[in-house]
């Protein structure tokens, strides 16, 4: 069933009785050409592009909960391509280009909104670091504009320019940055993959990975054994556990990232604003909620929930930067489980087991990567070779010292 405005009107006139399921609920087959473990954003986009770009349709996505039950539904929905190190730069640039055609490609409105992202800076040194970044963005073919204090004031007049603890020197404006409706991304890819014949199997937890003679042969699940020639692990938040099923120990530590949304308010913030100095970023959803967050809780955790010190820190940062949000009331907080890698950059690579591939280590930046991650993981699984824009995301780069450390904080997992 094709979605369109006309279809919405037609169905509306007939009581909305004709809408079909967005995807099937197939029983798992005994064998597939490829299995993707993990029905989150990255897993679903991997499946979609395996089917679409590589014609692999005898494949399944195994999800232990419901589709999109991981971080794809627990993030702050920011989409951007503002990295400055080789490796990240070309990858996120590619991802943003895919975002820009996503609705028409998927026939699903993921509400990708290029409302612009502004990274504030508060000293000459920070300005120069952002200039280095912005220039790299332009060198890569993306967009960036360096705003001075008055330029920021023009766009964001409600910031506290007079009293805030860290005076605003300016901002790096990324006009093509923005947001998207997070759940819709999962659903759009799920529906797209399903329409191409991919089996999306929910409530199917993988409990083991079968390896024979150094080669993957299938997986054990709560719904029985399933054979497969190729298996992709795409389970950010649980990467260490699933990789351990194949005897691997990953350079990953799991951390909580909390985020917050307020009650609905009439539009007051039209951009995505990032206040790095205060570890605070914010945007306003189309429903009117202020969606914002800060840094990790900073201790390893799988609890999907955090504690007050970071909650308070985030609120304090909001109050020093934009005290006009003081009377907005936080409606809900939540926590996602982040795969934190030792350099803050992800891994899309083969593993020591033949036919077993891994896509993990997205730190707290996985949402915007969903299209390119799936694109590159699909390329890797289909061809056995890294896609050129993900060629630096090697599993062994820590051992060899070829790290991609945007933050410059070193090999401590939680500092990225």
């Amino acid at each position: 069933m094709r979605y369109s405005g006309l279809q919405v009107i037609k169905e509306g006139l007939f009581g909305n009785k004709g809408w079909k399921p967005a995807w099937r609920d197939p029983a798992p087959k005994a064998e597939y050409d490829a299995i993707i473990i993990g029905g989150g954003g990255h897993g679903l986009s991997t499946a979609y592009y395996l089917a679409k770009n590589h014609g692999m349709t005898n494949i399944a996505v195994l999800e232990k909960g419901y589709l999109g039950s991981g971080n794809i539904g627990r993030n702050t929905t920011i989409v951007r391509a503002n990295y400055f190190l080789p490796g990240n730069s070309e990858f996120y640039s590619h991802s943003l280009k895919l975002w820009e055609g996503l609705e028409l490609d998927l026939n699903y409105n993921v509400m990708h909104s290029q409302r612009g992202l502004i990274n504030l800076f508060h000293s000459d040194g920070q300005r120069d670091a952002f200039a280095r970044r912005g220039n790299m963005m332009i060198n890569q073919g993306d967009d960036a504009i360096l705003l001075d204090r008055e330029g920021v004031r023009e766009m964001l007049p409600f910031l506290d320019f007079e009293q805030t603890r860290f005076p605003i020197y300016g901002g790096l404006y990324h006009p093509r940055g923005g947001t998207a409706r997070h759940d819709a991304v999962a659903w759009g890819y799920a529906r797209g993959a399903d329409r191409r014949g991919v089996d999306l199997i929910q409530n199917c937890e993988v409990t083991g990975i079968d390896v024979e003679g150094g080669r993957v042969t299938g997986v054990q699940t709560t719904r029985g054994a399933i054979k497969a020639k190729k298996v992709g692990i795409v389970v950010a938040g649980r990467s260490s556990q699933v990789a351990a099923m194949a005897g691997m120990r990953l350079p990953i530590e799991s951390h909580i990232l909390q985020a917050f949304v307020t009650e609905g308010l009439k539009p007051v913030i039209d951009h995505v604003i990032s206040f790095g100095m205060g570890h605070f970023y914010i945007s306003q959803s189309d429903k009117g909620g202020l969606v914002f967050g800060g840094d990790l809780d900073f201790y390893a955790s799988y609890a999907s929930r955090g504690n007050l010190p970071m909650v308070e820190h985030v609120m304090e940062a909001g109050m020093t930067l934009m005290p006009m949000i003081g009377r907005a009331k936080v409606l809900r907080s939540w926590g996602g489980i982040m795969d934190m890698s030792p350099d803050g950059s992800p891994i899309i690579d083969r593993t020591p087991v033949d036919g077993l591939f891994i896509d993990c280590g997205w730190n707290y930046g996985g949402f915007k990567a969903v299209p390119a991650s799936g694109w590159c993981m699909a390329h890797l699984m289909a061809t056995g070779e890294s896609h050129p824009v993900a060629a630096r995301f090697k599993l062994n780069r820590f051992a060899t010292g070829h790290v991609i450390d945007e933050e410059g904080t070193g090999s401590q997992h939680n500092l990225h």
Partner: protein
Amino acid sequence: MRLEGKGLVDRGAPVSFTFDGRSYMGFAGDTLASALLANDVRLVGRSFKYHRPRGILTAGSEEPNALVEVVEGNQQTPNVRATVQEVFDGLVARSQNRFPSLSFDVMGVNDLLSPFFSAGFYYKTFMWPRPFWEKLYEPLIRRAAGLGRLSGRHDEAQYEKAWAFCDVLVIGSGPAGLMAALTAAQAGADVILAEEDARMGGRLLSENCRVDGQPGADWAEAVLDELRGMPNVRLMARTTVTGAYDDGTFGALERVGLHRAPAPHLPRECFWRIVAGQAVLAAGALERAVGFPDNDRPGIMLASAVRSYLHRYGVVAGQRVAVLANNDGARATARDLMAAGVKVVGILDTRPDASAVEDCPVYLNAQVTGTAGRTGLRSVSFRHAGGAAVLEVDLLAVSGGWNPTVHLTCHMNGRPLWREDIAAFVPSPGAVPRLTAAGACNGAFSTAGCLREGRDAALVALAALGRAASDVALPVAEDAPYAITPFWETPGVEGRQWLDFANDVTTKDVKLSAQENFRSVEHMKRYTTQGMAPDQGKNSNVAALAVLADATGRGIPQTGTTTFRPPFVPTSIAAMGAGGRGAGFAPQRFLTSDQASRDRGAPMIEAGLWYRPSYFPKPGEATWLESCNREVLMVRESVGVADVSTLGKIDIQGRDAARFLDLVYTNTFSTLPVGRVRYGLMLREDGHVLDDGTTARLGEQHYLMTTTTAAAGLVMRHLDFVHQAFCADWDVRFVSVTEGWAQFAVAGPKARELLATLLGEVPALPFMGVADVALGSVKGRLFRISFSGEEGYEIAVPTRHGEALFRDLLARAETMGGGPYGMEALNVLRIEKGFITHAEIHGRTTAFDIGMEKMVSAKKDCIGKAAAARPGMVGPEREQLVGLKATGAMTAGAHLFVPGERVHRETDQGYVTSVCWSPVMGAHLALGFLKNGRARHGERVRVVDHLRKIDVVAEVCDPVFHDREGVKLRA
């Protein structure tokens, strides 16, 4: 309408307030909702999506409809619950999400278009043409969405945060909470009793009930009097516990100043962090609505709320009332109203087998098939066991049963348990460690049951605390069983039945989500937005779940629940962020020279929480650059003085001090002679540069390390780790002395001359030497070190003398043609000399990159040495520190390219980190990193900064531009 002689409001204290510009009277003790109802105002809001007219549904913080803006001067607070806001003289409130007025809202047209606005419709359209999304569709959606408005102005009001510690935290002051508090307090435990309402007593204030023979409210007051008299009890009214966190920590929001006119320093709200040894959750239960067509009209109210308004406020919200219920409890509503003289036209009991005996007509097996009255209920149509009927009513009290307030027990991932007998979820025991649920929130709905569970929960808490319990007698109270037959929606009728009032989610939306295979409860929630409105699903999640369970052919327990997460009630950013506004976000650190610098007009800039002077303008200087150039030349030609006290200073002593330094620095300090200073490089264990600085050997077993300003805390933590983890038994101790010494750089060809006038005699220090000096009776230290490339000294005195010494040094310098210099000049001087800062050691550079690989001693181990040897950390592919010299201006952040090659990420050769105009050399200088840069001195590179429109060619050179041989330093 207000009833004479009823209610607990203070009839002797009338107050005046306005709503939508009209003045009304209420009494102290009223909420805005009770006062509006007393004034027969029924229409108070508009719904989110369809802009449906809405009235007051509840009498508590769970209210989904009656959300208003409260206005104070040019500031306003959106989405205030009229059911929580207390009235006071001068309160100004107005309705929201309507245009132009509450009674005529043009957006009400959405209601007519609702067939096209089904759940998730926006995912299926607005896709074409692509640019229309940001330009047309999204702005329309954004404008229509949202409820209240922020003022857009800084919130300048006072807020507060505080801590409290107790043995037992009791949450809720109804019968269970009061018994728990009393039991715990009488056993001597420190008790905090937190109550969301302005007045303690919970449902005892809202029901016609008796405890120990007295009216419930009187019994509550007597218990509260007793608690007030106990020093170990703290009563916190107007305080909502918002979240349960690890290890007995709770967040709580106290409404301190919201019920009165603002006053100076009086906080609007206080966010408490309460740490409790044990907790008793006695949060009560929330009544559920019932699904039937147009069940959202003003005049349809929860039965318990009708009783609250009657007993607590002496208000009835209608003249002709009907009651719709699926349980026995709601019968009291009819009886209480009739006792108060209100006309009850009928009880509509959805159960076929309930009792029909009341003093008013009772209709069994009743199902409402429709309601009339757009801005206020006029009639109810229904069918029942005996046929169908229409009742003219202006108030319909509804009760779909009760949901225990389990929310806090879910905050640590606990999943509530479904209890079939009460058709509700109850807390999973132990879901929050050290917290016991009691009373209605635990599924005990009788007054006697609440009293008993409250006492028992306190006994559990006392036992866990190891305290003996005193014998607390249980009062006598009603103990009727709770009889309910679930009724979620009305079958076989046309029309929309609302679940989530605020977000306009109907039973049709839930069924559509199931139809489209959004069958998981989380999918349904996210697809329909059920439960995501300001009431957080408190009024509707369970009913929506039941409808989904039915639509998917599963039971409720199999369908599951969504997760309740903090906060329990929407909580203001300002309260949780209290203290963060303005400069409060981080401590401010001031130098002893601060006032002296400001006296000279120096703009102060923030650096690692410190404030440092940027430059010292002189009359006639129009730009910072003019001042900076003068200060640079001053240092190069005569003498300059700068406060460098912000550098971290660590005093290190012990027989193993030298050995310790050898471990943390790449180079060797055990060979440093006493009285000498050495530059040291410190790596992280991953092989990248952590910090650099000079370390002086003050004695055989005594060193003084300096760190950069930014990394002072980081280095201290690092040293503590290395010491405690790897060599705790070594004879070494260290402590920060950053704050103990004020230290000033005196630099330039006349530095020694200046110091001679100060000290009488300057110790004959070699370059990189240190000596004790005396300034009168004050003992100081003199270092011969330089960050400028000139002959330079740093003189340090105990901090209390810092200001005096700074002013003295300036006075002396100025008589010699010198003076103070600021951060700008300091930066130019160090770039000319090729000294690095954190602009260069930004966390991604290695000793190899900055040309210091020879400083990594081959003769010993050090932190970071092994990892620095990884293949990717060295070699010609790395970007290496170089100098750049150009005739045109360069910018830090520019990238480097080979002239003639295309400018692209793939051809990128490096980047610029620091730039300056060198007035000494008459050239633009820069430091930067260039691939294989050390082998490329003499080459020309293109410096491109798109952002600042810079495109110049520079010459690659050694990073040391000034006095490469160090002749001046050693003069």
